[in-house]
């Protein structure tokens, strides 16, 4: 059976995995690590500290999906969880500001903190091992040196706009040493948190703890973690002349091209969005077949900045392994 998912104008075909023992007489589909090691492949096409684009090839959808789900909702990261207000005379309400601060991604290595034990009484719960403290103390004043006739609040007032960079890290206890090289900062300094006018002030303290994306999206270490299947385009009959020009226009730039003989050919199917535009034109009927490769996953992982994307992927693999290992060690009760 082909490993191409067929894409027709109104339906998809051949979508389910069939690589199981007993499905075919000719092929043995039973699990074999060595076989998997030989066939499975990873190709990294782009990698920087915020974004990664890589392919996982010859892997089942259930496994690829497990990695994707874990990256989004089970890889731990640090975010603001408790906000203590001392003063807030701005127009933005306490709970709204607290929510905005919670969503600010912080540059903290999650391995530097331990989990907060929720079973302890609140007074003992937070220590220098599991909590990072940040504070925000700002007051807006009029700027006496503002140019005459100016209407720009940034010129008229001091501290009119409060940004994520105004959150100041307050190391506690042994954090003075452990965080000396990597002080806690928002990964993006220019996130607008509030706007003030002269006389208004905000004074608050933030406790940041470890959490997982499943509990709240602010704890998710990724902006997006997604995959798509590799597009596959088959030209069944030669397309030439004016039709070829039209054919090329049916795809995003760089997918199809015309060779020296004036015939259309597929240059790079990976760039295709599988819009199915080509299937709308009667002149191409029966001449082209669209599909996607069932076991070729193109991952795109965008980090919030706390960890590198490859680190997030590694953690997702380890978390899946730990899940299996933990379950294996649990006694089966009745």
């Amino acid at each position, binding site marked *: 059976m082909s490993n191409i998912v067929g894409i027709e104008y109104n339906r998809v075909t051949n979508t389910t995995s069939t690589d199981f023992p007993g499905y075919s007489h000719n092929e043995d589909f039973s*699990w074999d*690590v060595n076989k998997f*090691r030989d066939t499975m492949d990873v190709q990294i096409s782009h990698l920087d500290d915020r974004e990664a684009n890589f392919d996982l090839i010859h892997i089942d959808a*259930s496994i690829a999906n497990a990695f994707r*789900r874990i990256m989004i909702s089970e890889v731990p990261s640090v975010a603001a969880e408790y906000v203590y207000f001392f003063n807030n005379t701005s127009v933005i309400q306490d709970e709204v500001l607290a929510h905005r601060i919670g969503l600010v991604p912080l540059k903290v290595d999650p391995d530097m903190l331990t989990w907060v034990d929720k079973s302890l009484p609140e007074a003992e719960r937070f220590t220098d091992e599991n909590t990072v403290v940040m504070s925000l103390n700002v007051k807006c004043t009029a700027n006496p040196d503002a140019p005459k006739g100016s209407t720009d609040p940034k010129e008229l007032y001091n501290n009119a706009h409060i940004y994520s960079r105004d959150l100041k890290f307050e190391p506690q206890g042994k954090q003075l040493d452990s965080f000396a090289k990597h002080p806690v900062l928002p990964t993006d300094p220019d996130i607008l948190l509030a706007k003030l006018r002269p006389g208004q002030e905000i004074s608050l303290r933030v406790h940041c703890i470890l959490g997982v994306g499943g509990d709240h999206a602010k704890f998710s270490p990724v902006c997006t973690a997604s995959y798509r299947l590799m597009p596959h385009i088959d030209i069944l009959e030669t397309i030439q002349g004016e039709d070829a020009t039209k054919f090329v226009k049916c795809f995003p730039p760089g997918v199809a091209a015309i060779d020296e003989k004036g015939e259309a050919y597929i240059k790079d199917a990976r760039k295709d969005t599988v819009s199915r535009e080509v299937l709308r034109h009667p002149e191409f009927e029966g001449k082209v077949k669209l599909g996607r490769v069932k076991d070729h996953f193109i991952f795109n992982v965008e980090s919030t900045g706390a960890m590198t994307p490859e680190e997030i992927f590694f953690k997702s693999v*380890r978390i899946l392994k730990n899940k*299996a290992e933990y379950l*294996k060690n649990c006694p*089966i009760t*009745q």
Partner: protein
Amino acid sequence: MSVSEVVASEDVEMLSDEHAVQEEEELDRDKIRLLPEAASEDGTCASFQISDEDHTLGNALRYIIMKNPEVEFCGYSIPHPSETVLNLRIQTYGKMTAVEALHKGLKDLMDLCDVVEDKFTQRIREL
């Protein structure tokens, strides 16, 4: 051997083999439960209820257990979206018990993760 005996012997084995692991982690007796009304006498088919797991582990585990040629059927379901439990059903052809098939599946899944991690590390080093 009845199902309870199969399970009991597994328990004893695990206690002796892996007491080192269980010394650090507290024994989680609520993690996985055998559903007695859905099991056969000889233990070749059984249903399990796993708590605090979802499609992430459910579907991956179902796939890897189905890869075992001794397994006739494997399926999973999340009976209700508000309850974080996962039901897993395994039926074998008879040469293996359902518990053995489950443990083989978990081991294979761990091996798979190792291969993916190694491969990814190798490719990063090649960059």
